[in-house]
């Protein structure tokens, strides 16, 4: 989840807005006594703000098309990022929604007022000049910033392509191209180049699960970047080459062949046993084992794979994965990008 501090209901208290992995939007309202218990943000029909996939404790994972844009959604979406900003310039906060699965961006318009939001029941694709915005890979976080200092809101977006070392994960900015009137964000421009998949020798950069924000953390008048996420790195400087490389390739080939055998067997078992109870499954497995032409072969495959994996691990330098927070200080000349505060409805209104 990527929290946003924003005065969501214009009551003078900052609230915390965020989407979480449950596929919906949550709000902790600020009060005189601190933040209230988080609640779901609902549309005007009292439904959660979602894309398609969402989770409830009662029914577990569900999918719905109730909020799909007119003409349908381009793909089944899973909302995990959300930010509030006035997209249409009508003086109230709308929601920008990010799709974790395919990187599509949507708008949920506020058809009520700044103090009393009434969100539309349908999502709309976020567009500029007829072109719908899409981030490479899945959206992780959204922030409203002013990257180029023109006093208009731009969108900072992070994406990730997977949970391991994920080539294609990056940080982007969508610059508002309108001089006045309706907000018109550009297609995502890379701010931090996408991770190229090269395994570093230390945690030099984030490789997956990117979340980011911009702010003048060093007080020099330009926007610095903070990024949270996972680094995957290799602990040894030694490249695997020559004889070890040949041996590794051979071992990996053998292990893969065995894995395919195991997977085929597992798939067959799953198709046959998926409707069975646990007891029936156990009985079926026992029978299958006894009927096998060579039951010991099953054990042999397991033992062989284990041995191969041990040998591969010995040849391959160790890999590590850990989350960190990184700061990228901006080296731009102070004054070129002066605005340092992330823009929210609260300070946009104050600026007017």
């Amino acid at each position, binding site marked *: *989840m*990527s*929290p*946003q*501090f924003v005065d969501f209901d214009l009551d003078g208290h900052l609230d*915390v807005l*965020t989407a*979480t*992995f*449950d596929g919906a939007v*949550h709000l*902790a309202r600020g*009060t005189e*006594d*601190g*933040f*209230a*218990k*988080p609640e779901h943000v609902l549309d005007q029909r009292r439904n959660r703000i979602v894309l398609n996939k969402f*989770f409830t404790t009662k029914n577990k994972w569900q999918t719905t098309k109730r909020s799909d844009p007119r003409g349908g959604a381009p793909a089944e979406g899973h909302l995990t990022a959300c930010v509030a900003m006035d997209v249409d310039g009508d003086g109230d906060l709308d929601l920008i929604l990010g799709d974790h699965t395919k990187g599509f961006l949507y708008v949920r318009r506020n058809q009520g007022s700044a103090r009393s939001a009434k969100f539309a029941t349908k999502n709309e694709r976020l567009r500029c000049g007829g072109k719908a915005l899409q981030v490479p890979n899945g959206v992780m*976080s959204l*922030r409203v910033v002013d990257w180029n200092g023109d006093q208009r809101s731009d969108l900072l977006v992070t994406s990730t392509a997977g949970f391991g070392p994920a080539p294609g994960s990056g940080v982007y900015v969508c610059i508002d191209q309108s001089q006045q009137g309706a907000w018109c964000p550009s297609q995502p*421009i*890379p*701010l*931090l*180049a996408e991770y190229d998949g090269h395994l570093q020798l230390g*945690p*030099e950069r*984030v490789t997956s*699960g990117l*979340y*980011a*924000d911009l*702010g*003048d*953390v060093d*007080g020099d008048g330009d926007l*610095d*970047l903070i*990024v*949270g*996420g996972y680094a995957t790195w290799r602990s040894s400087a030694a*490249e695997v*080459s*020559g*004889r070890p*490389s*040949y041996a590794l390739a051979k071992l990996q080939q053998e292990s893969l062949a065995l894995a395919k055998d195991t997977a085929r067997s597992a798939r067959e078992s799953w198709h046959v046993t998926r409707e069975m109870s646990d007891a029936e499954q156990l009985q079926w497995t026992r029978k299958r084992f006894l009927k096998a032409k060579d039951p010991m072969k099953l054990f042999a495959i397991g033992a062989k794979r284990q041995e191969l994996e041990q040998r591969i691990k010995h040849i391959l330098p160790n890999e590590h994965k850990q*989350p*960190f*927070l*990184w*700061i*990228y*200080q*901006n*080296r*731009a000349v102070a004054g070129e990008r002066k605005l340092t505060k*992330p823009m929210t409805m609260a300070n946009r209104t104050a600026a007017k």
Partner: protein
Amino acid sequence: MPMPTLLPLLLIAGVAAVLGPRLHSQSVSGEQSPDADFAAPVRIQVGGEFLGTKRNYPSPVFHDVNGDGRHDIVIGDLGGSITVAIQREGDAIAFERDYPILGQNQQPLRFHNW
């Protein structure tokens, strides 16, 4: 494996050993967009420990929590917890250890993830 087949591999290994460091530094410098002149990333440490290492998918956002005009770091995570690391006074970029943001009931604020 006969020795003549190994020779090209050994040659490649030798060339890679010479070029390796150069290729590595190219990869690091090529990380930045031409429009954003960012210095190399620095991992944030507090009291000798790296910030965020004990969190699942740490998600930072700048916010001045204590009203001193400095950017503090608020950190959300996959489990729905939310903490803040206050930026220290002084020229260097340094932060205090992060602590949970509390709700009305004086319990840590926590968003539902499920």
